[in-house]
């Protein structure tokens, strides 16, 4: 794993527990339904990127948002499983995440 691509402005660092917001507003949303409202852990901080929700409508994508790889335990998303150690990792933007203590 390498460092973030630029100086990230977001709230979280690797290891933080986070909860994905449950939003269902209109627009181009890149946070998949299956993790909305779920809790995971920041695996990696990728850095700041242009916001696809804005770019999708011909706007400039600013302000940039910090992008993270967030790791979820498979059973926390899909229920009881014989492979409780398996993980699902999703690339999520800062404004979709809130801290979980």
């Amino acid at each position, binding site marked *: 794993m390498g460092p973030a691509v630029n100086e990230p402005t977001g709230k979280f660092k690797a290891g933080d527990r986070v909860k994905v917001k449950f939003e*269902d*507003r*209109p627009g*181009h*949303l890149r946070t*998949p*339904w*299956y993790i909305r409202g779920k809790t995971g852990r920041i695996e990696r901080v990728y850095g700041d990127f242009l916001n*696809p929700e804005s*770019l*999708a*409508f*011909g706007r400039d994508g600013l302000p940039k948002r910090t992008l993270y790889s967030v790791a979820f335990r498979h059973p926390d*998303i*899909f229920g009881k499983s014989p492979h409780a150690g398996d993980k699902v990792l999703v690339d999520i933007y800062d404004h979709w995440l809130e801290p979980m203590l």
Partner: protein
Amino acid sequence: MPRGHHDVGGLPGAGPIDQSQHELSDWEILADAINQALGAKGVKRTDEMRRAREEMDSAAYRDMSYYERWIASIEAILIEKKILDKQQIDRKLAEFDTKWGRP
């Protein structure tokens, strides 16, 4: 807003994965190349194309093939940006029917 038709991760009812591969037709290679060329020229962004596919009719989204969806979204975005209009495309298709013959 309900779950988008593109947002399929974890949806139940999926069957075995068909591992067969079809060789791309010329029109599919063309669709791919035009999509990339429009991106390289800064005419449109991939994010806009994705959004156009999300805005498609949901039944059409499931029924159309991959590159058909690309063509539909290329057309939608070019029309949205007023680079082309639907009438021009329809007229050009009518010219093709004359040139190529009807099926």
